């Protein structure tokens, strides 16, 4: 029984850490800009493939590839914002922005999936990294999952700390809480939007790099992560970073507990049950306003 609790907690935190990081990226876009980027998971997919290519092609350690996928994705995000989303953001009211960004992102999703398909084909790809058991406190954990989750959590917390302490971070939070007020005090909206968009994409890609250590890759692996990210963002409260981190971990714990106590089939049902419960009690999410 004791090991069951430990299994659930560690398992839940490892799953949750990954959820938290990918959701943070989406939160930056959806929470800040009301941009519903359903292609978010596709950047995760691309990050995963990039790491896969670097590791299997050039033998680069998967953890080191984060130094490549992160900045590359950031640059791509900046470019995408400039070329595509900035135009939307200039014009629209929040509700139509949401719908139109949905449409735009759907197009981007198709383009990215097809591109990945052309380059890597639909064959399942994967590699094995650190798939060794770690024995601790009487039970066994997979080293790669613990590592991936650890890195994800560390990055998430680091980003959160950055938001709290740096000037840019404060500007971001100001924009999220009071967009008009923030503009009045001279915060450059467009620049912050671009940075956040880029950061969001980078987080997604980095999560992908970590995920590639654990699961097989296909060009269509992205959408489930987008769905999970959306659920976590809403659960934690749109725009709330700490809420997002907490919600990701909570969701991971609930899902893992469900799987242990009932069966694997329960996983998604339990996520939804939690989401429904929270939203009944607090329609704006755990920490939402």
């Amino acid at each position, binding site marked *: 029984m004791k090991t069951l609790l430990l299994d659930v907690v560690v398992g839940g935190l490892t799953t949750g850490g990954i959820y938290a990081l990918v959701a943070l990226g989406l939160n930056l876009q959806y929470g800040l800009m009301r941009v519903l980027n359903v292609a978010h998971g596709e950047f995760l997919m691309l990050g995963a493939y990039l790491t896969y290519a670097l590791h299997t092609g050039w033998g680069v350690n998967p953890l080191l590839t984060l130094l490549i996928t992160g900045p590359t994705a950031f640059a791509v995000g900046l470019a995408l914002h400039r070329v595509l989303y900035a135009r939307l953001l200039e014009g629209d009211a929040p509700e139509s922005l949401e719908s139109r960004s949905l449409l735009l992102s759907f197009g981007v999703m198709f383009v990215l999936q097809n591109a990945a398909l052309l*380059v890597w*084909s639909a064959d*399942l790809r994967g590699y094995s990294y650190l798939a060794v058991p770690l024995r601790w406190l009487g039970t066994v954990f997979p080293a790669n999952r613990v590592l991936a989750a650890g890195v994800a959590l560390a990055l998430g917390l680091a980003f959160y700390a950055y938001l709290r302490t740096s000037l840019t971070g404060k500007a971001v939070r100001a924009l999220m809480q009071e967009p008009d007020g923030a503009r009045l005090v001279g915060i450059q909206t467009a620049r912050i939007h671009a940075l956040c968009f880029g950061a969001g994409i980078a987080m997604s890609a980095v999560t992908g790099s970590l995920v590639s250590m654990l699961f*097989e890759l296909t060009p269509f692996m992205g959408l489930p992560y987008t769905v999970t990210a959306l659920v976590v963002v809403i659960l934690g409260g749109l725009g709330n970073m700490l809420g997002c981190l907490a919600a990701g971990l909570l969701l991971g714990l609930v899902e893992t507990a469900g799987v242990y106590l009932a069966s694997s089939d329960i996983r998604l049902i339990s996520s939804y049950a939690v989401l429904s419960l929270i939203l009944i009690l607090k329609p704006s999410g755990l920490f939402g306003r």
Partner: protein
Amino acid sequence: MTMRRRAFLKTAAAGAATVPLWRGKARAQAKPVRIGYAISATGPYAVGASITQAPNYTLWQEQVNARGGLAVKGEGRRPIEFVSTDDRSEIETAVRFYEKLATDDKVDLMLPPWGSAMNFAIAPVATKYGYPMIGPTAISGKFKELALPYFYTMLVQPEPQMQAVAAKLRDLREQGKIKKVAVAYVNDLFGIELNAATGPAFKAAGLEVVDTKSYPLAAKDLSPMLRGFKAAGADAFVGLTYPPDNILVTGQAKEVDWNPAVFFTGVGTAFPFYRDRFKGAEGVMGIAGWNPKVKFAGAKEYFDAHVKKHQKEPDRWASAFAYASLQILERCVGEVGLDHARIKGMLDATEFQTVAGPIKFVKGENVATPGMIGQWQKNEFELVWPKTWATGTPVVPKPAWA
């Protein structure tokens, strides 16, 4: 250069290379035989289709056209022209396209799409328009319920497959090598049917099943289930799994430090990438149907040709049967021509010899292939059951994870 472009250029080159052959004949260029199909190039079905079916279609076309074309009784050789599309893993798209093939394009022959769900939808369309269709990736007891006279399934169906597994496990139990069995199955039609067949088959074989668990198609974590099996003392794991879950369950068994004497993961084990992923996957068993060592005519040649054209190996199960279905079609057209009723007549009456062995259809189901089990041994997926078809002897207990 992407694999598809390479494949396309190779086909074009092969096609171009056959032109002098045609010019050599002292008559006008033969009218092509138009063969239509939809295959999933995008969407979730694309993974399976691109391993098992699509490469065999293009390989066969290239080989046949290099010989001067498909031999049609009474008409000499005519080149094969494909009329094909991507069905996007969408059933509606596939249904519409096959209707188009039958009524608009009026193709001469049809080949099936990938997977049971697609075949369920397309088989009635093909039968409605009288096109014989042989489905190498259609597995379900429900096809018999459909009772479609023009549809034929190649692969072993769930009941005989699980009976084979039960027989093997009983054999091992009698040798004292295993005691307790744990079963896991994916909760879509395929896994559920296999599991439904497993219950009675295992009971009849007197096997002790300590636990049976189901899991969803896109599961991300099967370690709770595996830990449970380990704790229950199971020493034989029967996984009615599908890629990518079979990869997940294998990786996670290693991670939770569980190495039962028998580790059987259903589908996907027979694929080369599985072997490569697990450094040989020594000792892992799975559903099998073929390997390049089988004594059937053309097996090794088929393997080599597939590797040469597609830079990847055929899988050790349905791939060979997909190719075999084309061989069968080729033989029928050569002997009775393109008339659909005559082709059906021949399909119903003949035992065919193919790279996958003898194939005989009774009421649309292939009864000549038994349920088989394979095991990765020294980088080859040896057939280890039934004994009459085996290319190797089973290694139990399974060696430690690599």
